[in-house]
């Protein structure tokens, strides 16, 4: 009991928020891939939105304010709307009658469990020279300066990539592909 009280008094508010957001992220993430109540892709998409929003909370805790905003605007906004539009266009009624195969569950759990073991073992064995009290602030001004000085070439290349993606999508959505 006293140990628990010590633990609680030592935990600061950001640390507590970390545990809250981490639990939310992982919980919603689990509901994306396997929801016991619904096999509908729309529910998966909705839980993916919630996962991304709680992840933006983790970004704020890491002082990456700009990325937290971008995460919500681009992922929870644009990308998820795209997903929902596509789900709406496809008729996925047949999906709800299909069950997940038992073999797939066993194989998935085995392989993923092995990889998690490797991850955690390597994490345990690594000695990080990390700062205990980091000072990096990911605010917009600093990131913008970096983006337009050191990373200006990749920035321009990414714009070409977006153009290519746009042309590709228009070509793919044509009725008769040649």
């Amino acid at each position, binding site marked *: 009991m006293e140990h628990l009280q010590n633990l609680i008094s030592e935990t600061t508010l950001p640390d507590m928020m970390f545990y809250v957001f981490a639990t939310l992220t992982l919980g919603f993430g689990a509901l994306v891939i396997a929801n016991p109540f619904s096999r509908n892709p729309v529910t998966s998409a909705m839980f993916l939105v919630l996962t991304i929003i709680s992840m933006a909370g983790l*970004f704020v805790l*890491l002082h990456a304010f700009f990325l937290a905003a*971008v995460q919500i605007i681009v992922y929870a906004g644009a990308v998820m709307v795209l997903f929902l539009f596509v789900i709406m266009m496809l008729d996925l009624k047949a999906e709800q009658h299909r069950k997940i195969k038992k073999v797939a569950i066993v194989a998935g759990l085995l392989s993923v469990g092995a990889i998690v073991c490797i991850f955690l073992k390597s994490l345990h064995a690594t000695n990080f020279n990390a700062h205990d009290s980091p000072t*990096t602030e990911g605010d917009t001004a600093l990131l913008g300066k970096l983006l337009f000085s050191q990373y200006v070439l990749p920035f321009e290349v*990414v714009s070409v990539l977006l153009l290519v993606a746009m042309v590709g999508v228009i070509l*793919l959505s044509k009725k008769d592909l040649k």
Partner: protein
Amino acid sequence: MHVGLEHYLTVSFLLFALGMLGVIMRRNLLVIYMSLELMLNAANLALVSFSRFNDNLNGQVLVFFIITVAAAEVSVGLALIVALYRRRQSAHVEDLTTMKL
């Protein structure tokens, strides 16, 4: 216990594992695609936490680029899925076995 780099990396690992489990387990193309997004986000979380705890902003710039590329990738991938659905009337990987001998 003070929350440090290890805690964030553990969350990132577990999220990546969840995404991978989804890719292996589910048979719907759209849900597989969402699981891929989950894995991508896990990598982003790892990069942001490395950037924070090593006092280096380059990681965050990399995450910015990853988000941009992911948006382009999602648009092309979903267009492919729609084109596939138009031809086969199915978004289920078990129905797409043309390459099977």
